[in-house]
């Protein structure tokens, strides 16, 4: 019998181990690296196209996506999959303004900068006729430091709803400072910290001819019109810094958990209470903000509206989508998908979010607990510093076949999630 050649055996072992490590890598690319419920699959339909924010899909499945930062001087991309190979290519880049808001309705594409809203006429295939000549329908919206983006949605009556975020964390006299009190009467609320409603077909509107639709909303990035309740739903980004501004009242853990990120149903005149209150999802109460005399125990004025769902703090809800398709199982019909961009203010505790969540709805109300629907965007098990996250979900849209699309504003991956 030949002498056993240990050199060859160990070389073989090394080769086998290397091959095995490659199979692990292949599994990482399954479903674009995402973990989804049984029966669902995901692919990236485009990558590295820029910091993609909100997204709109036309009736043929073509995609419009906004950019947080201009790429070659353009802030909106139009992508198509002409050869139907599952990968989308950028067909057109237009608009010299970056921004988040985008929506298709009634033959128009609506898109916002941080100060204005434009609309582009679409042809029968919902492609833009003249990308260089939009109509300016809203102008002069405040955009100071913080919460500058202007998400938008259009209803069935040709009204457009625009978020104007507060240029402040908690309306302190000295923003984000140690034990600085809130400004009396918070004058920011006059022209920010709420939703303004305009006509979707009038030119050059501003505050004077818009309607102050809702107030007391610190910043809304994810919002959607719910066609089964015929009302606006918004996700608020709750305030930061409970511990760093009020260490005698809140420790680091409490500050990491609170306040809730709230889903609100908004009717005209509603006041969600910022900056005077925050929602405590553990006590299930509206709490008086420390800036206005709160201490973690005192409750807020009951006149402020209650959330429909209260999620854990700081996860940054950037996208909201009510699902109306028929591709997904029955449980998902009329339910809400929320894209949680992922936290930063939980430090020194590990960050949370970086996933798409789902809340089932029935008869216009949640019919069960919220759950994580798609996770793995971050690409790492634990995120301690936000820049460790390889992808952060931002925008959500539904395609004509009932698939949903998710954007990532770190590198610009666009994911398509389907049910087979």
């Amino acid at each position, binding site marked *: 019998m030949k002498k056993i050649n240990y050199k060859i055996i160990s070389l073989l072992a090394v080769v086998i181990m290397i091959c095995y490590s490659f199979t692990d890598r292949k599994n990482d690319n399954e479903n674009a690296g995402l973990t989804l419920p049984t029966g669902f699959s995901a692919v990236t339909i485009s990558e590295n196209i820029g910091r993609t924010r909100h997204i709109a899909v036309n009736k043929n499945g073509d995609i419009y996506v906004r950019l*947080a*930062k201009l790429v070659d001087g353009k802030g909106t991309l139009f992508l198509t999959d002409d050869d139907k190979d599952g990968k989308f290519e950028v067909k057109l880049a237009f608009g010299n303004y970056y921004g988040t808001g985008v929506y298709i309705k009634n033959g128009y594409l609506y898109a916002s900068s941080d100060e204005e809203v434009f609309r582009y006429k679409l042809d029968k295939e919902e492609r833009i006729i003249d990308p260089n000549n939009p109509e300016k329908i809203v102008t002069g919206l405040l955009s100071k*430091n*913080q919460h*500058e983006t202007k998400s938008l949605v259009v209803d069935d009556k040709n009204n457009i709803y625009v978020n104007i975020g507060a240029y402040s*964390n908690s309306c302190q006299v*000295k*923003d*984000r*400072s*140690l034990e*600085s009190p809130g400004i009396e009467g918070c004058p920011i609320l006059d022209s920010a910290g709420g939703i303004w409603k305009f006509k979707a077909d009038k030119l050059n509107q501003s505050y004077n001819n818009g309607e102050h639709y809702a107030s007391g909303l610190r910043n809304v990035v994810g919002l959607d019109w719910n066609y089964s309740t015929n009302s606006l739903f918004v996700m608020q980004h709750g305030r930061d*810094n409970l*511990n*760093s501004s009020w260490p005698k009242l809140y420790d680091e853990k409490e500050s990491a958990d609170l306040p809730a990120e709230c889903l609100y149903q908004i009717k005209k005149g509603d006041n969600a209470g910022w900056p005077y209150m925050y929602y405590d999802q553990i006590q299930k109460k509206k709490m008086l903000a420390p800036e206005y005399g709160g201490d973690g125990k005192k409750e807020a004025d009951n006149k402020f509206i209650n959330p429909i769902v209260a999620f854990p703090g700081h996860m940054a809800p950037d996208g909201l989508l009510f699902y109306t398709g028929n591709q997904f199982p029955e449980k998902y019909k009329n339910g809400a998908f929320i894209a949680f961009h992922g936290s*930063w*203010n939980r*430090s*020194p505790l590990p960050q949370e979010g970086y996933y798409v969540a789902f809340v089932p709805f029935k008869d216009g109300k949640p019919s069960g607990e919220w759950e994580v629907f798609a996770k793995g965007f971050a690409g790492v098990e634990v995120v*301690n*510093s*936000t*820049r*460790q996250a390889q992808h952060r979900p931002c925008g959500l849209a539904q395609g004509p076949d009932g698939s949903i699309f998710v954007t990532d504003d*770190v590198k610009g991956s666009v994911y398509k999630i389907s049910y087979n």
Partner: protein
Amino acid sequence: MKKLIFVLGFLLSVANINAQVKKGGPSSTSLLKGQAVYTQYCLPCHQVDGGGVMNMNPPLIETSYVLGDKTQLINILLKGLSKGVVIDGDKYTNPMPAVNYLSDQQVSDVLTYVRNSFGNKASAVSAAEVKAVRAKK
């Protein structure tokens, strides 16, 4: 054998500390104190690795603000910074509150720590330098 392992372990840890404390650089005590200040007052926004948060809180990794003029840097801590900054073409617009309630020693320790962490290498900031900047209006 045990003695040998102990001696080797001791030499290794000494070498490790020496590797971190460069010749003429800040002492390990100073860096530890600076890290404590950073963890309590700076980490919530600038994050544990100095990486900041896109669009909001600037990174502290090899930026001109951190490595450059010490007076400007000291004033950022003593007076805050509300106008937003642009670093490598990216805007960061969350305001930074003034942390003038920190002592001269704390400011010097944390700035020395930041200037020698996260890939940064720069001269220490002394308490006397902080005191002098604070005295100017």
